[in-house]
């Protein structure tokens, strides 16, 4: 059966096969500079502008790192699910790539969130891990689920099936994120520091600092995603050009990988390789 994953005339293949030079990463420099400035501003606000919290003192400053990182990671997971819906609808491998990058980057942010959350818990409650804290626990469950994303991809050899199954996973997990948070929150007494409830109950300076930190973190996420996308596109293109130089067929040199690879290929070779499924 002809796999529908890569339509022969998709823009990706067209551009690659005509050999016109492609530019990836447009705007990357501007985005990077904006990120650095936003993070510098956020840090300056955190250390010099936001007031010390009465009970927790200096320790509370980790809130400006931990909470934005958690919010950005969770949003990234949900965005990964939305991009995966787009992939399932259009069957364009580039959506799968975007979904993969969004989830990959969110996983890294999630590790950061768990570490900073643990530090905060140790500092304010005296334990590295607190079970009656629903947000931390839900976050751990979500993290454990997403930790299987890459093993799942890696265990499927056919690239078309890999991307399709990964998208099904990403949509399921993306929908699971809010449901899990509701379920875990129901199960525990509400103990989390009230600062999470919204910015309404924060003093003005803290709210401003928090919003700037959140913005900076979101910019960092976007920039890192764009870097990874650019790197992956460029690598695929370099590989395709190198193969064309040496006259190999494309299917021969493809290493098995958990990351999606865009089809950097001439159309007949890919059709021959894809029809075996």
């Amino acid at each position: 059966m002809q796999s529908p994953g890569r339509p022969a005339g998709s823009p990706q293949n067209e551009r690659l096969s005509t050999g016109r030079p492609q530019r990836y990463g447009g705007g990357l420099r501007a985005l990077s500079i904006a990120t650095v400035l936003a993070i510098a501003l956020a840090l300056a606000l955190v250390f010099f502008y936001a007031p010390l919290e009465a009970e927790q003192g200096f320790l509370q400053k980790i809130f400006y790192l931990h909470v934005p990182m958690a919010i950005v990671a969770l949003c990234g997971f949900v965005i990964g699910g939305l991009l995966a819906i787009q992939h399932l609808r259009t069957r364009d491998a580039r959506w799968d790539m975007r979904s993969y990058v969004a989830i990959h980057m969110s996983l890294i942010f999630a590790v950061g969130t768990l570490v900073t959350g643990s530090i905060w818990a140790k500092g304010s409650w005296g334990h590295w891990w607190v079970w009656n804290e629903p947000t931390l626990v839900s976050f751990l469950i979500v993290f454990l689920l997403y930790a299987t994303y890459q093993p799942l991809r890696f265990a499927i050899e056919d690239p078309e099936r890999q991307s399709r199954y990964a998208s099904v996973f990403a949509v399921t997990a993306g929908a699971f994120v809010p449901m899990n948070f509701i379920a875990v929150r129901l199960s525990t007494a509400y103990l989390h520091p009230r600062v999470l409830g919204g910015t309404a109950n924060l003093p003005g300076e803290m709210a401003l600092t928090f919003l700037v930190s959140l913005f900076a973190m979101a910019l960092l996420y976007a920039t890192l995603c764009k870097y990874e996308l650019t790197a992956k596109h460029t690598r695929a293109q370099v590989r395709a050009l190198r193969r064309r130089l040496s006259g190999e067929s494309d299917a021969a040199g493809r290493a098995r990988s958990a990351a999606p690879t865009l089809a950097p290929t001439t159309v007949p070779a890919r059709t021959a390789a894809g029809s075996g499924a």
Partner: protein
Amino acid sequence: MNGTVTTRSTVRALLRKELLVELRTLESVPGMSLFAVTTFVVFHFALNRSSVEGDLAAGILWVTLLFAAILGINRLFVADADQGGFDGFLLAPVERSAMLIAKALTLLAYLAALELVAVPAFALLLLGPSLGGVLGELVLILLLADLGVAVIGTLVAALAVQTRARDLLGPLLALPLLVPIVIGAARATSPLLAFSHPGGAPGRWLATLGLYDLLFGLIAYALFDFLLED
């Protein structure tokens, strides 16, 4: 659909096939039941207690049922993947989601059969208080939880069966997704298994379970077709 074959008759045919295969091979249900009973024995020695009640009893019951269910989930699609069942199904001019419904119903039947053995065994071997007065509520909780396990298990089994590490990936994918079910089911069960139980199962846990089942049913229904096209 061609007009001649309705989804309902497809589901019925598939379900009949599944149950017939299980009756003739006895691959899943006896193993799951035996596993559950053995696990109770292991819990007895691991905890060094001759009877349990309340939270602990609910936890033991649900962990055991869940792990026994994982055994069934792991085997759910293996025959279809290895012996051409998927190919045969895909060649037939029938709706794809019929397979999801049939497999989920199959798993539901497996779980019901498992619980027919496991719950009495639990009451006999480990449970302190009697189950007499709370049986109706317990059955309701079991049913709601089983629905969710069946839907999630079917989706996860279909995801994992085509991978090389299927026995590993199935449980790894399933367990986090089943955590909310464990929360709801264990919280709802624990007052029923206490010596002095203060009343019925809390309604909000039943509602949580039902809502989770419904949402995951919709998700699985929307996504299952994408797993079946090769």
